[in-house]
């Protein structure tokens, strides 16, 4: 797919112009992908939450409420952007853009299908984790700049939470990277040709998957860990003072981060766009290969998305000290031990 566009561009422009136009097109494609996916996931979240709570969810706006998310986004665009009087103007306005651009950056190395990958760098996974950890700066900036006690408390809480859960998420990723031997996203996926890491890596991969799920939910400020914008305690947490389009950016960034984390999870544990092969049942494997690879990828992404939404509408919220106790006293030690076991197993080669 990308090669076909490449020839078209080279035919039209001189080489370096073609490269620039190519980058702009790729950027546009990513933005459109993000907006579409965010709108779809807003709609999905409201519908799944509704069915879990015995009600119908949005029905009146589109055929089955399909246009509801569009109405929300456009309404937010048309709202009056308020900047509080004593707020720190520059910081206040930069924060949402920072949070959003950081979540866009992480789309570069993700492989949607064998031919559809923006930039196959050799340190893909390291790049994603380091970029996604910059989001916390935007949150702290928003919390501090809006000169509101509740948002300051919300920002402090989310800062402590994201920084500490980066650790166990990183360790969980490390075990898989160690097993597959390479940091680059396409390398990891190729290494799962003969079986997904979650099956091949048996015990350490399973433990790493559970730790990764918990840590990434905490990193997104979602579900049982949504202390940053705990509605009941801190009105609306760090984005209390934001209205209109700036609030929509935080809203969009939250869903984009959810996508990035579920894509990272599928690439590492569920074999990216690799179809599901079971041993030597070749008839079964042929059928599986009929399904195009990017459908496999998006199928797995939406399964893990459903998991995040499921967490949110079932669990009550943790207190800040229980949250940090869970990370430092439980997840980190288990992650470390799991890393050691994983390394021994890969060293001895006991992987299926």
């Amino acid at each position, binding site marked *: 797919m990308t090669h076909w566009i490449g020839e078209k561009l080279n035919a039209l422009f001189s080489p370096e112009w073609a490269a620039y136009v190519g980058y702009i097109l790729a950027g546009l494609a990513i933005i459109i992908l993000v907006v579409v996916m965010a709108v779809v996931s807003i709609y999905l979240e409201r519908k799944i*939450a509704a069915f*879990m*709570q*015995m*009600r119908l969810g949005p029905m009146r706006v589109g055929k089955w409420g399909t246009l509801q998310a569009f109405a929300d986004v456009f309404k937010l665009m048309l709202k009056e952007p308020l900047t509080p009087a004593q707020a720190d103007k520059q910081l206040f306005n930069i924060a949402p853009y920072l949070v959003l651009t950081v979540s866009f950056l992480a789309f570069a190395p993700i492989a949607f299908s064998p031919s559809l990958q923006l930039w196959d760098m050799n340190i893909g996974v390291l790049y994603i984790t380091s970029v996604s950890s910059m989001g916390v700066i935007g949150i702290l900036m928003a919390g501090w700049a809006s000169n509101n*006690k*509740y948002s300051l*408390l919300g920002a402090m809480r989310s800062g402590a939470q994201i920084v500490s859960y980066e650790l166990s998420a990183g360790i969980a990723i490390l075990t898989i990277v160690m097993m597959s031997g390479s940091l680059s996203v396409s390398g990891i996926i190729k290494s799962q040709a003969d079986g997904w890491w979650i099956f091949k890596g048996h015990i350490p991969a399973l433990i790493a998957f559970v730790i990764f799920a918990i840590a990434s939910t905490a990193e997104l400020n979602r579900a*049982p860990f*949504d*202390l940053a914008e*705990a*509605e*009941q*305690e*801190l*009105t609306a947490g760090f984005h209390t003072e934001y209205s209109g389009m700036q609030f929509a950016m935080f809203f969009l960034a939250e869903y984009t981060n959810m996508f990035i984390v579920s894509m990272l999870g599928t690439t590492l544990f569920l074999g990216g766009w690799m179809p599901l092969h079971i041993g030597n049942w070749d008839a079964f494997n042929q059928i599986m290969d009929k399904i195009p690879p990017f459908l496999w990828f998006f199928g797995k992404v939406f399964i893990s998305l459903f998991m995040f939404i499921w967490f949110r*509408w*079932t*669990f*009550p*919220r*943790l*207190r*800040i*000290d*229980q949250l940090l106790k869970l990370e430092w006293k439980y997840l980190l030690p288990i992650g470390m031990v799991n890393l050691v076991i994983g390394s021994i197993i890969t060293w001895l080669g006991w992987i299926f």
Partner: protein
Amino acid sequence: MENIIGSQIIQSSDDEFIINVGPQHPSTHGVLHLQLKLDGEKIVDLKPFLGYIHRGIEKMSESLNYKQFIYLTSRMDYLSAHINNQACCLAIEKAIQAEVPERARVIRTLMAELARLTSHQLWWGSTGLDMGAVSPFFYAFREREMILEIFEETCGSRLTMNYCVPGGVMNDIHPDFVRKVKQIIKQFRDNLHEYDELLTNNPIFQSRTIGVGYLSREEAISLACTGPVARASGISCDVRKKEPYDAYDRVTFDEIITTEGDCFARYKVRLEEMKQSMNIIEQLIDNIPAGEYRTKIKGIIKPPAGEYYQRVETARGELGIYLVSDGTNKPYRIKFRTPNFSNLGALKPMSLGGKIGDLVAIMASLDLIIPDIDR
């Protein structure tokens, strides 16, 4: 209990962080304004500011006659609206020594227990909501809507029912009232295990409520707490047992008393009380005595001069009515001793030293209704 703290008030150093859990706040269920002095996330001092919903019901009752002021009380504690009206009617009947027929007594007790069920269901839903779990809120409203349907058929309105009248009840119960109540009680008993699965056995909920907001027995007595808040700290203060009124002397039910005194104990007490209310309803629903549902009371009620006192067990505690009459058709002075007013006093000793998350859990376990505090 990890957060029992000394009772001395810590002097505030200069870097104290004062935030207003202001009149408009999602967790205050109304317009309660608390001023918190924080040291980081720990609560150092708590000061309630009330009056945001003070409508002067006691002053208004002095200019309304005896049949009119009863229906103001259902705007005080609107979740046990029926029980408030029942208390006023009992006080007036005691003042003019009116004879209430048996059928009216049983119907009133039945409706009171149904109102207690709806109140506890809404409390259970909003406890889940305060702890961050949104789904229990919708499961709590499922049975509540069925009971409200019954109220609507018999009394005409869902929330402020105005069903009690001095001398009995306004009109007879709906023909298929008995069938529907039996069906609901059976259905609610089957669904109660869902209540346990959703919140009670949830480890996160337990970790947030066990050991949080401890209220000792002596402190509860000295703060005059009543209702489930006091019974969770070991005080036996159920007015239905101490001074049975209406048809409570005819039913057997046990008063749930636990001694732990923390948020989870108050949660368990209220869940058990729902089961006891259903026992009472089942004992009464089959043998509603036939006969008159109201004795005819002449138009203008003029009780002889003097003071009258009546107390009743609402869903949140003991409601006391002090009626001072001077012989005219308007009460000279009325004092409503509302349960939430003194339960609010217990908020401060319980939440000092705790975190903001604990304050939300404690307020959910206290089940405060703010118009009941401000009147």
